[in-house]
């Protein structure tokens, strides 16, 4: 709660410090002074900043995040509308990322400096450096354009059309999954390597335990901790929206909403979105901590 209170103050200050006038943006280039004043008054921007903040905070505490300047919709409804798409993409991407990272990371750790390891390193380097934008466009051109297998973008809820949901999810999830997966691969490799080199693994090997058991019970379990941490960080990042991928694939997620809000200086939406991202980070940290205790008995004590 203390963190959230701090975040809300910082968010409010930052959002208002950025140059740009939402009223001018809303009115375009041609308007009269009376029109400007009227809109400014309607959106409450004529109030002193402190009054705006206390009003916003008071309402936010009761769950009312205000109304968008741009659309007149409530911020909570705008976020709720986009939450399913963001959740879908984030979890699908993490799934893709883990499917890539765990096998690849373990393989390279088992045979460091081997051909497999080198290939994995090059692949993850490519995954990190290739711009998402470019990868996304290439996928669209190939799989929707040339081959015509998948729709070029958009989103339909799972409940309405499961097949359409899956078809539209594949490409964005692959793009973000490859990027996150490349990051995670490196963590998996180094933490498995480290675990394999630790004393207790050597002891277990010396005791004559079968290699398979040593690996799964003694090495892998210890390597899980850093994996959980980095996966948590990646998931939090994905949940706050992946702007570029959302835009290229017309995926109506929170990243797009936040970007639109920045462009229009739509303060209430921006504040609401950032507050939500802060909550997401806190929640994921909490979950990661809980997982720690589940994995590592020492922490439980």
């Amino acid at each position, binding site marked *: 709660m203390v963190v959230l209170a701090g975040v809300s103050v910082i968010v409010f200050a930052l959002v208002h410090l950025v140059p*740009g006038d939402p009223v001018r943006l809303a009115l375009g*280039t041609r308007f*009269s002074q009376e029109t400007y004043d009227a809109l400014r008054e309607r959106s409450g921007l004529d109030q002193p900043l402190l009054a705006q903040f206390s009003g916003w905070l008071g309402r936010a505490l009761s769950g009312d995040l205000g109304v968008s300047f741009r659309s007149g919709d409530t911020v909570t409804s705008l976020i709720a509308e986009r939450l399913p798409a963001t959740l879908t993409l984030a979890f699908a991407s993490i799934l893709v990322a883990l499917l890539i990272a765990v096998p690849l990371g373990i393989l390279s750790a088992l045979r460091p400096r081997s051909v497999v390891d080198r290939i994995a390193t090059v692949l993850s380097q490519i995954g990190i450096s290739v711009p998402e934008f470019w990868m996304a466009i290439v996928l669209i051109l190939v799989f929707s354009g040339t*081959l*015509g297998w998948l729709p070029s973008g958009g989103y339909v809820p799972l409940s309405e059309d499961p097949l359409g949901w899956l078809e539209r999810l594949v490409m964005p999830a692959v793009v973000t999954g490859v990027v996150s997966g490349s990051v995670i691969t490196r963590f998996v490799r180094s933490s498995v390597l480290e675990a394999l080199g630790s004393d207790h693994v050597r002891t277990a090997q010396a005791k004559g335990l079968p290699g398979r058991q040593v690996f799964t019970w003694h090495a892998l379990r210890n390597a899980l901790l850093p994996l959980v941490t980095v996966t948590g960080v990646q998931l939090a990042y994905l949940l706050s929206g992946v702007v570029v991928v959302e835009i290229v694939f*017309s995926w109506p997620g929170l990243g797009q909403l936040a970007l639109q809000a920045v462009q*229009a200086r739509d303060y209430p939406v921006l504040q609401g979105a950032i507050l939500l991202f802060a909550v997401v980070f806190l929640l994921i940290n909490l979950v990661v901590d809980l997982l720690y205790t589940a994995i590592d008995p020492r922490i439980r004590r």
Partner: protein
Amino acid sequence: MRTNRLLPLLAAGALVLGACGGGGESVDTGGGGGGGDDVLAAAVSAQPDQFDPHSTNAYASFQVLENVYDTLVVPNPEDLTMEPSLATEWATSEDDLTWTFTLREGVTFHDGSEFDSADVVYSYNRIIDEDLSNAYRFANVESVAADGPQTVVITLTQPTPNLLERIGAFKGMSIIPEGAADELDLTTEAIGTGPFRLESSDASSTVLTAYEDYWGGAPSIDGVEFRYITEPAAALTALQNGEVQWTDNIPPQQIESLQGDDTVELQTTPSVDSWYMSMNYARPPFDNRDVRRAISFAVDREAVAEAAWFGAAQPNQTAIPQDSFFHSDYAPFSPDPDQARQLLQQAGVQTPLTMGLMVTDEYPETVTAAQVVAGQLEQVGITVEIETLDFATWLDRQGKGDYDAFLLGWLGNLDPAAYYEEQHKTGGSNNYQGYSNPQVDQLLAAGAAETDPDARKAIYDQAAQLIVDDVSYLYLYNPDVVQAWAPGLSGYQIRADKAINFETVELP
């Protein structure tokens, strides 16, 4: 146990394979779609911000509203002169101060209620009384009153020859039902008199359904689904593989190659939009006419248009495009670096001179245009420092006068007063550059009140000449409207004012 666990996985695998097995077939468009089967899917580049026609300024909103609401008069698709819509005829008094509009009979709103003069009076007074976005269009209006259910009388404070353009240029002047602002949430709901009704709108698409009782006859399709596809390459792919049947979001670099491509029907027409560079008179030496003229001689508009729009723009030294009745072919500046250097010398300017040029990524073409302009000015000893800003910051700096020069455009203007008056008259609300020429002021005032079209054109031609000679704005070009649709789609007409109307469209 083990096999049982595998089963769902296998099923999922089959599903993916099945999904991939379409091979070349057009993909099921899925989602949305209300009403019947003949729904046109249109890819537009942005989500509408809101649907209150009197409050929004977003083009994305007007793309939808064009099909939902009506105005008293509308621009003719061919030459953009005003023609009847909800008003069937009109008459002006001897002194040009009273306009009497006769309204169309048998028009109903989407909720079934009758349209009459009370709705017009309500709509116009809402804009005026609440100082909404377009209140400036009623600056000369003293009152709007009903005279019986089929007649509306507008009384003016001074003759206003462009009154029809003011009330009909676009759907920002829509007629809404009396009391609608209190009874509905106009930002999300719409009850208009247009060919389609607003069915639903979410973060992916906006859906319209045909209004069977439309006064102009029911539309030929059952509905329209506007899908927001921001990335042009994705929008074009969606059109080519049949997910959508229409789009205005074409990658500019592909316009040329698509013209010979029979998988899409691509059309272009010069738009009414006018792009220009403006220099700040408060920042010497840009207050010096010779310096501005030097810059105007140094800029090769043809090359700028080619680079920024891949040729899909018509260079123009004045504001009004060539297809308009009010177009002037005045073009005194042919690219001439020698003369530019000479003028700079004459003005006593030390070269290299540094000029900041402010552009916004909201309009990415201006960034490219600025780079070309910078290259051209370099040759005459002017170093251009390009600043690319987001639009909010850009507007902020423009408002504060914190710039040497900027690039921007005027969009959607139809009448010469809209192109020239507030931009160039002394103290005009959009005269950020600080231009002042008493002769121009006089001409602009005369043009605003002249009721004879030919005399009016002559006045604005004269004003435009002075404005161009003084380089109040350095006019660059009018870009083309570029739209593409599925081959076989008929009944659609591309328009210079970029209004998109699907009333008479028939699907292939």
